[in-house]
C-alpha cells in the first residue's frame, strides 16, 4: 500500500470516527486541528485504524504519535495481522 492509498483510507476512517464528511487530513494534521479529537476519541481512532488496516500498534508507538504523518509511517511499517 503506497502513502497515497494509506491517506485515502485514513481519511475515510477519520470521517467515520469524527462523523464529519468534510474532514481533510494532511501529514501535519494534529489533534489541535480537529475539534472533537480528545484523548478518548484518540483511542477510538487508533482502534478504528487498527481494524481498518488489519494491524496492531504497540503502546510505545501509540504514546509517541505526533501527527497523522507519524501515524501513516507507523502503518506503512507494520506487518498485517
Amino acid at each position, binding site marked *: 500500500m503506497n502513502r497515497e492509498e494509506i491517506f485515502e483510507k485514513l481519511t475515510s476512517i477519520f470521517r467515520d470516527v469524527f*462523523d464529519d464528511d468534510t474532514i481533510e487530513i494532511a501529514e501535519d494534521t494534529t489533534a489541535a486541528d480537529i475539534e472533537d479529537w*480528545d484523548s*478518548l476519541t484518540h*483511542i477510538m481512532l487508533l*482502534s478504528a485504524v487498527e481494524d481498518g488496516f488489519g494491524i496492531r500498534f504497540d*503502546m510505545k508507538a501509540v504514546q509517541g504519535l505526533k501527527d497523522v504523518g507519524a501515524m501513516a509511517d507507523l502503518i506503512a511499517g507494520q506487518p498485517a495481522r
Partner: protein
Amino acid sequence: MSITSFPFLLFFAVTLGVYYILPLRFRWSALLVSSLLFFHFSAADYTIIYAAGAVLVTTLCTRGITKAEETGAGKKARLWLILGLAVNLGILATLKYSGFVIGNVNFAAGLAGSGLRLPQPDLLAPLGVSFYTMSVAGYLLDVYWGICPAQTDIFKTALFVGYWPQLTSGPITRYNEVRDQLYEGHRFDPRQVSFGMQRMLWGIFKKLVISARLGVVVDTIYADTVTYNGFYIWVAAVSFLFQLYTDFSGCMDIILGASECYGIRLPENFRTPFFSRSVQEYWQRWHMTLGAWLKDYILYPVLRSGAWRSLTRWTRAHLGKKAAKQVPSILGMLCVWLLMGLWHGGTWGYIIGWGLWFWLCIASAQVLDPVFKKAIRLLRINTECFSWHLFQSLRVFVLAAIGNMFFRLRGFMETLHVIRAGLFPDNPEIFFDGSLFSLGLDAPDFIAMVVSLLVLLAVSVLQERGSVREQIEKQNLVFRWVVWYALIFGILIFGMYGPGYDAADFIYRGF
C-alpha cells in the same frame, strides 16, 4: 514531619546545602540519604520495609522483563510484569483495602444471619504508598512496553520510588520524565533556587492562611448539620472545595518548589482547575498526574482490549453507529472512575458517591451533547463571550463542590443526608446578619480569609498568562521585594499555625 513546620524547613535547608556541597556525581546519593531521613522523621521506621520490598521486587522484575525481551521470550516478560504488578499492587491493597474488604464481608455475613466476624487488621501504611505504587506500576508497564529502559542500579530505583518531595502527596511521576534529572546532579543556579523558594512560600501561604481558615468553617458546619442546614451546607461545600484546592495545590507548590531548588522539575498536578468549562476539562487540570496515569495505564489498555473491541462491534451491530462510539467509551470511563474512587479510599462514599458522581457528570455531558448544542442554537446563546464562559465555569464549580461532599464526609448515606439538609434552603439571611462570623472565625479572620481568596483569584488569573514568578521577576526591585515581603509577613501574621491549631497536616497525606 509536616512540610509546613520549622523542623521541615531546617531539614530542607541542611539537605539542600549538603546537596550542593557534594561533587556532581554524588548528588543523587545525597537525595537518597535525604529521602531516608525524611522517611525516618515522618513515618514509623518499620514501614520502610514495604517501600524496600517494592524497590527490590521492581528492580528484579524490570531486569527480568528486559532480559526476557532481549531473548525474545515474550511470555516470560509478561510473567515478570505480572509478578511486579501483583506484588506492588498487592502491598497497596493489603495495607489500604483489607479493612474495606473485611468490613464488607462482615456486613454481608451479618445480612445472611451468619455469626462470622473477621477481625479488622491494624496495618500501618508507609508514607506515600498510594503515590509511589502508581509510579512503580507505570514504570513496570513502560519497561514492558519498551517505552523506557530498566534501571539496573537498585539504589537509583530506590531514589525513583522514594524521592522525598513526592512522598507526602505525589505527584505521581513517570520514570522517563525524571530519570535524567534525578541522577545527573545539578549545578547551583541562584535563580532556580530562588524561584523554588518563592513557590514554596506561595504554597505555605495557601495552606496556612487560606486552607486552614476554610477548614474551620467546614468543620464547624459539618459537625452539626442539624443547626447548620440550608445555605450553610452550600457554604461548607464551596468552602471545602477551596480548602481542598488550597491544601493540595499548596502542598504541590511546596513540594515542586523544594524539588526545583535541587534542579529537579517534577510534573505539575494543577492548572487553575476552577477556570475549566466542563467537568472533563476540570479533571484534566486537577490532580493531573493521577488523571494522566489512569488514562494511559487503565483507560487506553481497557479500550484497546479484545473484550472492548467485541463490545464495540456488538453495539454497532445491534444499537447503531452512534451508540458504538459512546457505549464502550462510557463503560471504559466507568472503570476509571470506580478505580479513581477506590484509590482515594476504601469506602463506598468514595467509590460510588465521589467516583460515580464525576463519571455521571462526564458521561451525561457526552450523551446529551447534541441536545445541549440544539438548545444553544435555538436560544441563540453566544458561546464565545465572557458571561457564557463564566456560567460554564460556575457550573463545573458547583458540580465539583457537590462531588467533593462525598470526599469530605466519606460515608455515602451520611453525605446524602447532608445534601438533603441543604436541598431546599430557606435561610438566605445568614449572608447578611453576621451568622457567617459564628462559624469558628471572627469577623477579622473571616475578612482575612475572603481577602486571601481574592489574592488567590488574582494569582490564578495571572497564572493563565504564564509563570507568575517570571512576571514578578520582570518588575522593578522595590516592587519585587514588596511582593515577597508581603507574602512572608502575610504568612507570619495571618498564618494559622503553632499550638492550638491543627492545620499542619495535609488532606492528601492520608492517601
